[in-house]
């Protein structure tokens, strides 16, 4: 697993961003940036050459699902892996996220092991695809 990849963490709660950032650091990923909703995340994604997007669903402004759709609709960003980390746990929503092209779906509250497993799966598939 390439540890130097650049990761954007999007969540409206700074506590949750901090938790995810700490967990990622523990897993060896230190190259991270933060945004508090889709509206601020999108320009960062455009200018920042990120390798992975980790986003919440329920945020004021632009929601995570809309950010995911915007990423998939953008020729420059459409192949970027997106991991959703959210408290949303309606089956309809999970199906909706899958349809929109999410690469992983983690429900809060979650453990470090879950995050590691989902990241592993994403990279496994990426490396397998190459």
């Amino acid at each position, binding site marked *: 697993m390439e540890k130097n990849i650049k990761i954007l963490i999007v*969540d409206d*709660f700074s*506590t*949750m961003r*901090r*938790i995810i950032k*700490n*967990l990622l650091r*523990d897993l060896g990923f230190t190259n991270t940036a933060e945004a508090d909703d889709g509206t601020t995340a999108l320009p960062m994604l455009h200018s920042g050459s990120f390798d992975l997007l980790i986003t919440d*669903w*329920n945020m004021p402004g632009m*929601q995570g*699902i809309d950010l995911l759709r915007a990423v998939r609709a953008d020729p420059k960003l459409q192949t970027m892996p997106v991991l959703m980390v959210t*408290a*949303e*746990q*309606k*089956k*309809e*929503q*999970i*199906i*909706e996220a*899958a349809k929109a092209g999410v690469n992983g*779906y*983690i*429900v*809060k*509250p*979650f*453990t*470090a092991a*879950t995050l590691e497993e989902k990241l592993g799966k994403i990279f496994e598939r990426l490396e397998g695809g190459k």
Partner: protein
Amino acid sequence: MPHDSTVLSPEYADRLHSLMELIEQGGSPEQANRLLDEITKLRENSLFQELGKLTREFHEALNSFRLDTRITNLAEEEFPDARERLKYVINMTAQAADRSLSAVEESNPICDELHQKAQDFAADWQRFTHRQMDAAEFRQLSGRLTDFFEELGSNTDKLRGNLYEITLAQDFQDLTGQVIKRVITLVDEMESSLVDLIRISGQNLIKGRPQEEQTAEVAMTEEELHRHKVAPMGPVVPGVDDDTTTVSGQDEVDDLLSSLGF
């Protein structure tokens, strides 16, 4: 009927006038009694009219209160619902505090022990550098140091684990924040409903409103229904939210996604 209270009504004036004339002309007591009876009856009538009007207003106010289904719904369902949500907040914050405190309490003795041992070794080491230690004692110190290095590794691992536990315990803030925001929205809605109720009962404009709301709800299109289903609702609160349309944890998410070919 209400009339200007500063002017005597014609019915009263007529009868009082007749009574005055009767007294001046020395009329019979029977005639005077009849006029007095009539005046009393007039007075009773206007009292009954006022009372009737008050009763009707009271009745209408009560009706408008019952007719406002939104308020009934808020009071019967959403407020108990909000109470459960707030209890969930209390539980989550209590759990987070317990988790953090346990981790701190477990870490403190480890820090104390490391501190004490480091001080002891510093003293021994100073004696060694000042050549105040014989070979046998040095061998013993060397053995203790070997053990200490091993302990140091496992103890710092424990400390890191506890710090990690404290970090993870902070995730309550995100979840409880979302629940509280939802309850605040509910309180805002209750407030505006109450303001509406006051306006409605004040003006007696009660007809037709609940029905309009009902038809608006029925008329949800397919697309709106879908949007409603995937609209973010925040964390599922056990025992409050419908558990047939939601998943209960990561395992169910994974199962659902793998059933979709993920």
